[in-house]
């Protein structure tokens, strides 16, 4: 059971990191035009909002999809 627990946690970490890679990839394209000598606050805000809105879009779609499945239609 300990081994299983360990594997579960490591596997969750891997998923989390894969998600961070994916967000960084997409939000980099949305927020950074030319990489400057430092990450200015405008870009940082854009990155934070980008992650937040991506999750919002993801939840919106997942919830609506779930409702569709329950209604039996498609």
């Amino acid at each position, binding site marked *: 059971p300990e081994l299983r627990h360990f594997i579960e946690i490591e596997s969750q970490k891997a998923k989390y990191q894969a998600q961070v890679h994916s967000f960084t990839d*997409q*939000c980099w394209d*949305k*927020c950074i035009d030319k990489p400057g000598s430092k990450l200015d606050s405008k870009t940082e805000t*854009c990155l934070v*909002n*980008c992650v*937040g*809105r*991506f999750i*919002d*879009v*993801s939840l*919106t*779609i*997942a919830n*609506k*999809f779930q409702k569709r499945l329950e209604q039996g239609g*498609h």
Partner: protein
Amino acid sequence: QVKTQIALANAQELLQKMTDKCFKKCITKPGTSLASSEQKCVEMCMDRYMEAWNVVSKAYNAKLQMERNRLT
């Protein structure tokens, strides 16, 4: 059980693609919350994407059938 897993994988793939495409189309400048116009855009985009999936699936089926008929 294999069937359920494939169905699940299919739904997950669809959800992921829709999220990526609709985020790209609807959120140009990410703000501090989802604007109602963005929310509306996402919902429309999702409906259109699922319709597109169905149209593509039918068209692919029809084309496969046509190629099969040509060979026999």
